């Protein structure tokens, strides 16, 4: 009994005196685990053989050239953009309306609206994907393009709302009162006072929505027919059926898009905002 106690004391003392080092090891190990695969992708995109080998073979930009000349990959990027740009605009508009209504007005169904705009994150993607193809395609018979844009809107709304709503909540409403006291109506107040103040949050929400939509795979995979694939669907087919070295380059494209947009979004708001759910 006392022996065990001594051991547990010793462990407590060890953890107490080495806490900082242990934390350092955890941080380095886990962050290494998170970034190593990304490093592997970037490295492979420059490898001459197109695969990673030890010792590394010659570095080359060849695959970037091959990628730029690949008609299918280029058209997949265009397809993705023709979906992501409009769905981002729709999402940001709807999320801003939700944020404004939820922040300003008490109304019946306010809680339900908040719940509905969060729920798509919680429901497994495959479930919503199936539901969307059954309803949009099976029941309504909507054209492919419209279905996919709507699917992307549903996918991105929770994230945009999550970022935009807190900026509305934080915004000092005294400024709006002042504007109204000076004779501006609600619409003018929104355009001239509220919007400029919440604009960074709205842009950040839009950037995250776009990033998400650019990467969107599951909904698109279910809803979209066999027509032009988006870039994620294109790369899925490549990985499953015939990997070519340009896949590595496309990986880097995804990486650059995501890192750039998320960094800009974060610089416009606070990183803590992304930690809330």
């Amino acid at each position, binding site marked *: 009994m006392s022996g065990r106690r001594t051991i*547990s004391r010793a462990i407590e003392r060890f*953890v107490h005196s080495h*806490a900082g080092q242990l*934390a*350092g090891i955890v*941080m380095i190990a*886990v*962050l290494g685990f*998170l970034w190593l*695969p990304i490093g*592997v992708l970037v490295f*492979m995109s420059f490898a001459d053989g197109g695969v*990673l080998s*030890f010792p590394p073979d010659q570095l080359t930009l060849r695959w970037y050239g091959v990628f730029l000349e690949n008609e299918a990959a280029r058209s997949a990027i265009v397809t993705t953009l023709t979906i992501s740009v409009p769905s981002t605009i729709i999402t940001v508009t709807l999320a801003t*309306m*939700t944020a404004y*209504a*939820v922040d300003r*007005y008490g*109304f019946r169904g306010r*809680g*339900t*609206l*908040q719940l509905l*705009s*969060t729920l798509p994150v*919680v*429901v*497994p*993607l*495959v*479930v919503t994907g*199936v*539901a969307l193809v*059954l*309803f*949009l395609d*099976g029941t309504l018979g909507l054209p492919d393009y419209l279905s996919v844009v*709507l699917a992307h*809107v*549903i996918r991105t*709304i929770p994230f945009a709302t999550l970022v935009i709503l*807190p900026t509305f909540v934080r915004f000092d409403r005294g400024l709006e009162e002042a504007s109204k006291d000076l004779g501006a109506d*609600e*619409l003018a107040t929104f355009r001239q006072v509220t919007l400029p103040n919440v604009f960074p949050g709205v842009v950040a929400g839009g950037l995250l929505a776009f990033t998400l939509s650019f990467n969107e*795979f599951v909904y698109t995979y279910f809803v979209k027919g066999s027509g032009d694939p988006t870039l*994620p669907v294109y790369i899925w087919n490549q*990985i*499953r059926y015939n990997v070519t070295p340009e896949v590595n380059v496309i990986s880097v494209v*995804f990486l650059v898009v*995501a*890192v750039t*947009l*998320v960094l800009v979004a*974060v610089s416009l708001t606070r*990183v803590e905002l*992304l*930690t*809330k*759910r």
Partner: protein
Amino acid sequence: MASRDRLGTVSAFFREHPRLRTLAIAGPPAAILVVFFALPLVAMLVVSFQTGQIGGAWTLENYRGFVGSETYLTVVWRTLLLSAQVTVIVAAIGYALAYSIVRFSRRTTLLLLLVILPFWTSYIIRMYAWINILQSGGVLDSLLGLVGLPAVGLLYTETAVLIGFTYVWLPLAVLPFYASLSSLDPDLIEASKDLGAGPIRTFVSVTLPLTATGVITGLVLVFIPTFGSFITPRLLGGTNNIMIGMVIENQFKSAFNWPFGAAIGMVISAVVVVLLVLATRLGGDLLGDGGEPS
């Protein structure tokens, strides 16, 4: 000028009819979410009770076929076990990381960014990276070879699936863990230590209970998407590690039995609902939105 007058009229109209004003602002997003998110889920429920195709006769056949098949039940069981394993692994690693960041680092913003950035890159790309690392003769095997160890060729094993899931969900769990740890009053930890408790005792009896909300949120956030996943087992697990999400994918991509796929979708939804209710009872904050409590 005319358009401004018209806008003025609109404003005046809404000032006199505040309920219509609310409807005009909250209505469109609500309508989109109801019609293109809630209704499709209802449609899935309806279709799951139809035969062979949409609009077929009413039947319980899809559910009977699912529950009566040992193969499918085995798949569900395996999916549950795997999801539980993933959840425990991710929670342990994620909590250790969040704790280290909150208590031992000043460069919180940078570290959080390093955690969330991989999460925002394409899921498929991240899986592709792991294919390259785990396949026989891949990065891992080469590294093992360099230190004189035999190759393991982990691709298409359950271990590969576990690694893949751990990789993609870690950021998702770290965020709620971080949020609840950073709002924990450090004085409480000091008080516990002043009263003679060591760091481990303090962790078990003070820190962990006080961050339970974040922990539960993180657990559910990892379990649910793992349970419904098909990409990771398809790319890393090969044919020996079938998960329930892959069965759905199959119904829509090759078997073309939509009602049966819808029924499996309902089975997954049922698991999700049970988990959400359980988690909310236990105090998790899954549907919170970062805004003021309503």
